[in-house]
């Protein structure tokens, strides 16, 4: 028996960054909002024992419990998809705050080029720059339109940074100044300048000073403790939904946070969402939560899965190229190089999740691609996130992976090696997509999401290019041995790469080729909003959260408008660009 609850103005599925932003903005307007979160409650007070590499970084203490739910994976459409039985390549969040608790906090704005990538690429390099297999398209919004929302997210999070000479133009300075630099970062900046590149301090959600945001929430100053990525912050110094938007929503009295609530279906009738059905994961009881507006804020993977499972929108078909749900899944390429220094030691164990320096000279369209066999690029950074001993055993290639020599070298180089690495952009390809699995089910009896994904030629060429550039910088930094990263033969679900999954419910100007409009409102269902990096039509050369934060603020504005006026907030543009 499904128990039907009282109707609310809005319900969000998942309470991470996007769910928290929607909840805060709507609740401040006096709307009543319920946030359903499959995981448990947690907050800064849970992070006192957090300096534990084994528990949190190796055994994934804060991440998704894959015994209940995971996805299946294959490289090619004609392969058998098998479950990702343990986490590896990416680490989805679970629990209040989502992955926003254990993220690094590197907070970027995508480039103007990104939002109009198809038309800009065609204009500059002709329509055949990429083959027809790449389903590149514009986002149906420009950077200038999004700029105020970027700033709003940065203000909420108190982002610490300095002007990026080659980045997207900013109307305002960052809310707080850049983090402290370190000898490692200084070394990178100096080398980059020698190479006539344009280094700057990475924008960070690990705050350089104590800060009060416009909602009155205080975020503390970072202590550079070195346990940041994959860990929660015991000081409340890393901007997360838990120290910003969730308390803001709570204070209004209009927001109810309901944990242990796993949403299994978006309910709908006559083209209108009526609410969601969820399971209490502790009791197994089922509930129906009716709402005027349903907002999917359950990360890329579950946003896509819930739509497919609830039969909303047309599933993407790689054979015909038709349908949109599951289309344009993208990831990133982690190019770079490692440098080994014989005569110097660095304090690599100190650091913060976003302590870094970057050059954008090889990102987006900041350089000429006429004679290159790829488009876009990536930001190249050195980061000092706090090196940890179990997972960090830097050894030059050809060193054995165990035994006497391994031990000797890995001890020797632990504090004598540095890496320069890229967030490499990922372009959509017709054979990279999300669908529902026919064979495997989650703990609630629903089909798992199926990921079909492999690296493309574009990825390989870009990877090589960026790795060479990273190696140049390390040589200039004075490394004795420099080794470029190599891309694996196929995309491999096992080693961690990044939790920057994107696409599946993409944004655009044309309902034929996109699932949501630029307010993240479904073209097919006016009162259903799907918010997050699932809306990205491709993935850029930066971490995604700054951009998805901006889209979430815009979505909140759209939802408020919709509750007032109803209907589609954007007029469909049938002539939008598509390969």
């Amino acid at each position, binding site marked *: 028996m499904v128990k039907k609850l009282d109707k609310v103005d809005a319900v969000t599925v998942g309470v991470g960054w996007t769910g928290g932003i929607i909840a805060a903005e709507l609740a401040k307007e006096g709307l009543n909002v319920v946030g359903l979160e499959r995981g448990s409650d947690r907050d800064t007070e849970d992070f*006192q024992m957090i*300096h*534990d*590499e*084994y528990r949190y970084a*190796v*055994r994934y203490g804060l991440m998704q*419990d*894959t*015994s209940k739910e*995971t996805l299946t*994976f*294959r*490289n090619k459409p004609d*392969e*058998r998809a*098998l*479950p*990702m*039985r*343990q986490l*590896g390549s990416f680490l989805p969040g679970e629990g209040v705050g989502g992955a926003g608790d254990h993220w690094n906090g590197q907070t970027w704005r995508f480039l103007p080029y990104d939002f109009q990538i198809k038309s800009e690429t065609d204009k500059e390099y002709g329509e055949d720059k990429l083959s027809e297999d790449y389903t590149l398209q514009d986002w149906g919004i420009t950077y200038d339109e999004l700029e105020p929302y970027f700033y709003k997210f940065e203000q909420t999070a108190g982002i610490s940074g300095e002007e990026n000479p080659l980045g997207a133009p900013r109307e305002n300075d960052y809310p707080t100044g850049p983090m*402290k630099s*370190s*000898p490692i970062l200084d070394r990178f900046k100096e080398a980059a300048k020698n190479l006539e590149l344009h280094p700057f301090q990475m924008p960070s959600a690990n705050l350089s000073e104590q800060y009060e945001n416009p909602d009155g929430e205080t975020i503390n*100053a970072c*202590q*550079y*403790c*070195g346990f940041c990525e994959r860990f929660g912050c015991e000081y409340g110094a890393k901007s997360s939904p838990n120290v910003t938007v969730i308390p803001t929503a709570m204070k209004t009295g209009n927001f109810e946070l309901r944990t242990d609530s796993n949403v299994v279906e978006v309910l709908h009738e006559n083209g209108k969402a009526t609410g969601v059905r969820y399971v209490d994961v502790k009791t197994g009881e089922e509930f129906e939560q009716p709402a005027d507006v349903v907002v999917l804020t359950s990360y890329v993977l579950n946003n896509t899965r819930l739509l497919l499972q609830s039969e909303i929108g047309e599933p993407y078909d790689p054979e015909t190229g038709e349908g949109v749900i599951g289309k344009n899944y993208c990831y990133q390429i982690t190019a770079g190089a490692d440098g080994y220094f014989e*005569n110097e*030691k660095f*304090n690599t*164990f*100190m*650091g913060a999740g976003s*302590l870094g320096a970057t050059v954008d000279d090889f990102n987006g369209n900041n350089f000429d691609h006429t004679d290159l066999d790829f488009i876009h690029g990536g930001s190249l950074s050195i980061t000092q996130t706090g090196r*940890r*001993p*179990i997972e960090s*055993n830097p050894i030059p290639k050809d060193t054995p*992976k*165990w*035994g*006497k020599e391994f*031990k*000797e070298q*890995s*001890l020797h180089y*632990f*504090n004598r090696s540095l890496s320069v690495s890229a967030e490499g952009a990922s372009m959509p390809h017709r054979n990279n997509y999300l669908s529902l699995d026919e*064979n*495997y*089910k989650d703990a609630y009896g629903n089909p798992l999401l199926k990921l079909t994904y492999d690296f493309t030629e574009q990825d390989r060429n870009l990877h090589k290019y960026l790795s060479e550039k990273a190696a140049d910088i390390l040589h200039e930094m004075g490394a004795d041995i420099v080794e470029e990263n190599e891309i*694996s033969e*196929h*995309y*491999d*679900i*096992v080693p961690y790469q990044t939790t920057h999954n994107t696409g599946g419910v993409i944004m655009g100007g044309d309902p034929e080729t996109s699932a949501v409009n630029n307010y993240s409102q479904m073209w097919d269902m006016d009162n259903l909003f799907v918010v997050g990096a699932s809306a990205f039509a491709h993935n850029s050369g930066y971490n995604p959260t700054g951009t998805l934060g901006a889209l979430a603020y815009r979505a909140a504005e759209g939802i408020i408008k919709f509750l007032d006026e109803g209907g589609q907030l954007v007029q469909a543009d049938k002539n939008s660009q598509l390969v």
Partner: protein
Amino acid sequence: MADESKGTKISRRKFVKNSGYVAGGVVGGGLIGSLLGVNFGGTEQTSTAPAQETKFNQALMYFTRQADFNTLGAATERIFPTDDNGPGALELGVPYFIDHQLAGAYGNNDNEYMQGPFYTGTPFQGYQSALKRHEIFMQGIRALDRESEANFNDSFTNLEEEQQDEILQSFEADEVELKGVTSSEFFEMLRTATLAGAYSDPLYGGNDDMEGWKMKEYPGSQMSYINEIEDDDFKEIEPSALNEHL
């Protein structure tokens, strides 16, 4: 330049060799004691062992046969051997770490998707075994001995170091047949668990006395580096562990 304190490191190694001492307790015919005796050709001299507190957490939660535990210990010591830099897996307590992990969530794949059907995947699809990790370890460890008997007519713990390496290499290269899992998958699990035991917080029973961290010049769980992050010189910091955070 792993030379700063070579002198003391060498003497520590000699000490281990000669006394049969294992960090973590006095060894008088205990499991690891007899192992060290075998490995280093020394005899147990409990009388010369320093006065150390008995570590009551050094007992077995998972393994039921001493022989299996000894084989595990010998294998981890080959993966992370004692050398001039300092202690190896045995002295760090790695076998106890692994034993304890196998008894808990790690050994039982608590957070992993273990529903069927099970198929062999491509190398890019990851763990697809229907077996739980503790079953894989048990099978793999018995197979180490089986292979040792077959190739060298002796148990794994009694082999020369080179022979032990040869056996481990054959596992790594997938030359040994196991049920429901490949020998390289078992080997990779053993390797990563050994490193985890050498370097995790001592609360888990490995990294005894934070010796793993000391060798790596890793200060463990410090509260803050805000006052040092900008400094040019390398900081040698006495490590601290999580029990200080209570």
